[in-house]
């Protein structure tokens, strides 16, 4: 353990590791010091000059973000002069900031708004016109930039320099003419663009996907785990349950895995939660009409499946399982089908073209399955020895009478999905359990059972490190006909 240092913060004795700043200590102690340019995942810039505190014996107020705790230091965030300084710092920030909150996407989660209520509440003294700057700039596929709203905290510049190391952003010109932007004619092209939206304390960077879709104060947040790859980043899904819609995915701080960040791919997993991409009801293929027949009743489908299972010998049934389900779901699935029903043909369903060992150096891994390790452990648990790899062709070649398949949930993780489904068409009976559905690509399967999406279940997955990641909170499913795996198995139990 590193050496500890004690000091006084607002009258309380506080002990922190040596080398910590007052800002870090205050964060740990939940003492709120207003700040814009400081971010726990970035280097200290010390430019917003907002986080001023009083230090006994010091000639002037100090910025807490660059003030290393010294033993016995006496720091106050509560003195009048500190509060006055915060007020003025905020007024300086707002001086040239356009007050377009009613049409700004950041409204409701804006540092300027929040701090105005907390430490501001002054009468504006600015009576002259504001400095005007370019607005609504296209700086990247996921980003829209309003340089006028920017308060020049430089967090985005440091993110580009320190995290993605792409250095795409800079502050150009000087003084109050300073403008945030990309280098001449260039765009931000990396896969971490939306982190810039996250760290932007104001509405300068807004998300192209999310902007103007929903006011943030209407959104509910639930903690989950990103299903986009084997890293398993901690995320918060933002949705509006009463609308049965999801609006965005944001990272949740987890120093052991993703720190403060999340890749743009991870945020796109959202697309698989909303009704347009979902299988909302159970369906069966009507060969005569060459069309799907959907039904709000799932019980008949489960009964049909039970009848098939009862009719066939276990060796004529195969399981085809993708690596995107929770440990709990696998346990239940294999316990029922392998242990109780005696099915021994179990195949993995993976993307054949995957480059499993790829890594972008930051978060995104080539194994685009959230729970490869969990699946392998679950297989081992029921005595099935297997190496990681796609076995769909092997499954088709074995010509089982019935295949019960857990489909991959996230389409970008499975670019070969349409071809794989076409291969499955050659089999007599496939019961495909899936969250995802695409009317244009999917044909001929015997039955489709609708499953809950990742934001609609709790459970655990095991990431590439072997760390157990917890999907902590669940939204209600987008439709009442959408089932949990446990519900289907309970239904089968009842029938058999």
């Amino acid at each position, binding site marked *: 353990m590193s050496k500890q240092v004690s000091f006084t913060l607002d009258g309380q004795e506080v002990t922190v590791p040596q080398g910590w700043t007052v800002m870090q200590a205050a964060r740990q102690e939940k003492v709120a010091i207003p700040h814009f340019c400081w971010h726990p995942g970035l280097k*200290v*810039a*010390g*430019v*917003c*000059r*907002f986080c*001023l505190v009083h230090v006994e014996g010091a*000639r*002037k*107020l100090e910025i807490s973000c*660059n003030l*290393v705790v010294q033993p016995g230091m006496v720091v106050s965030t509560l003195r009048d002069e500190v509060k006055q*300084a915060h007020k*003025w*710092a905020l007024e*300086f*920030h707002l*001086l*040239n900031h356009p007050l377009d909150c009613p049409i700004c996407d950041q409204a409701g989660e804006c540092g300027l708004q929040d701090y105005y209520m907390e430490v501001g509440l002054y009468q504006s*003294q*600015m009576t*002259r016109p504001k*400095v005007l700057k370019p607005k609504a700039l296209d700086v990247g596929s996921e980003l829209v930039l309003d340089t006028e709203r920017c*308060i*020049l905290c*430089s967090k985005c510049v440091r993110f580009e320099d320190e995290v993605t190391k792409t250095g795409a952003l*800079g*502050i150009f*010109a*000087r*003084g*109050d*003419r*300073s403008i945030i932007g990309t280098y001449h004619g260039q765009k931000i092209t990396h896969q971490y663009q939306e982190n810039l939206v996250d760290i932007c304390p104001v509405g300068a960077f807004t998300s192209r996907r999310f902007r103007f879709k929903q006011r943030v104060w209407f959104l509910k947040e639930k903690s989950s785990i990103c299903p986009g790859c084997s890293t398993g980043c901690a995320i918060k899904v933002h949705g509006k349950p009463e609308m049965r819609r999801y609006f965005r995915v944001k990272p949740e701080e987890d120093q052991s895995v993703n720190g403060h960040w999340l890749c743009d791919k991870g945020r796109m997993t959202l697309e698989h939660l909303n009704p347009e991409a979902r299988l909302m009801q159970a369906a069966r293929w009507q060969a005569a009409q060459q069309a799907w027949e959907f039904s709000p009743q799932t019980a008949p489908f489960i009964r049909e499946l039970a009848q098939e299972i009862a009719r066939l010998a276990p060796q004529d049934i195969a399981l085809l399982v993708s690596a995107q389900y929770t440990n709990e779901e696998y346990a239940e699935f294999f316990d029922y089908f392998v242990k109780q029903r005696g099915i021994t043909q179990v195949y993995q369903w993976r993307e054949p073209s995957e480059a499993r060992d790829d890594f972008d150096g930051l978060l995104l891994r080539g194994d685009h399955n959230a729970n490869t390790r969990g699946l392998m452990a679950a297989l081992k648990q029921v005595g099935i020895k297997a190496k990681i790899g796609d076995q769909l062709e092997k499954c088709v070649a074995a010509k089982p009478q019935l295949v019960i398949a857990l489909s991959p949930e996230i389409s970008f993780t499975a670019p070969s999905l349409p071809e794989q489904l076409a291969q499955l068409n050659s089999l007599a009976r496939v019961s495909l359990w899936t969250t995802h559905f695409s009317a244009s690509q999917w044909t001929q399967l015997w039955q489709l059972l609708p499953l809950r999406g990742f934001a609609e279940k709790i459970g655990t997955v095991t990431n590439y490190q072997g760390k157990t990641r917890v999907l902590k909170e669940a939204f209600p499913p987008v439709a009442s006909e959408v089932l949990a795996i446990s519900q289907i198995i309970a239904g089968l139990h009842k029938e058999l």
Partner: protein
Amino acid sequence: MEKPKIVTRFAGLADSRSLDTYLRHDGYQALHKALAMKPAELIELVKASGLRGRGGAGFPTGLKWSFVPKDAPEKYLLCNNDEGEPGTFKDRYILELSPHMLVEGMIISAYAIGAQKAYIYTRCEFYEEIAWMEQAIHEAYRHGYLGANILGSKFSFDLDHYGGAGAYICGEETGLISSLEGKKGQPKLKPPFPALSGYLNKPTVVNNTETLAVIPWIVQHGPEKYRAIGTEKSPGTKLFCISGPVKRPGVYELPLGYPLQKFIEDDAGGLRDGKTLKAVIPGGASAPVLTADEVAKVTLDYESMANAKTMLGSGAVIVIPEGQSMVELLKVTVDFFHHESCGQCTPCREGTGWLSNVMHGIYQRKAKLKDVEKMIAIANNMEGRTICALSDACAMPTRAIATKFGDEIRSYIQRGNHG
């Protein structure tokens, strides 16, 4: 009062910039002496002389040197020859008189702190001075004062120069370092201080041209002799550049503690064209203004100026005659800092613009009387809140003018409001 010549001792000599002239007047003797000493002894010597930085802040030079870690393998010495403070034209005069003074001063200083490499950061508008300086550096290399094993010692040292593009902020020591590193000229957050992590994150000392140029004299004549000049806390001489409607504007070397009024009246010959004195900016645009009454009471040294709530600064004495509009003066001052603010720190970026904005309102007589108080409040909240001193440099003169000449500004506004 005796006026010893240290930095200006080459004034009036024919061919004063040449190495021959320099050598004839004991040039590079101090270097011989210094190389025979231990670096730590040299630092003690400069400490004992009481020399303070001549760029503006007046920080004790020997003390600054002593902060540099002894054992660091790579260290830098930088000469701040950016001379951007409005009203200042003294450092270029040193290069005009004898650039070898600076070169020798830098070699000795580099030896003292253990730097192997130094740069002279010069504002690029000094075309002739740069040519003279280059000439001196070449001569010094040719004669073994620069390069490997200087004068047969174990000390090797290289000197080069770099032209700044004319930003005021690049005269701030860490702004200068950023610029020299090829970055945008913006001051760096301190700590860490340059003495520990400066140019290329290596220990670095940044000294003003005048400070470095006086080092050879101090080494050669000893700290006691230097201390005998000036006041106890402000020893030595300093260059003062006086501008405005005086009879003999120009650069003067004066012992510190010299009366300001005497300087204006005797040395500079007083105001011309029968003008009377209204005010004086004693140390460059960032120094708070002194009224004519205050001018009579102060002497040209760090303490007297601090007592009068202003500063000696770079030694740029700007004389303001009766009849000069203080509204105009403040507008020009504030506009300058607004233009030169690097924009990193919010209070400076926004504050300088705000002051400029209010000031333009006043200038156009589209203002309220209480705008004068607003300017003082803005200035108060810009001061001491930023990474570097540019914000203070704007706030201090603003507050001084708005306070001392508040009535003039208010009556200016009122004349407008009454048509």
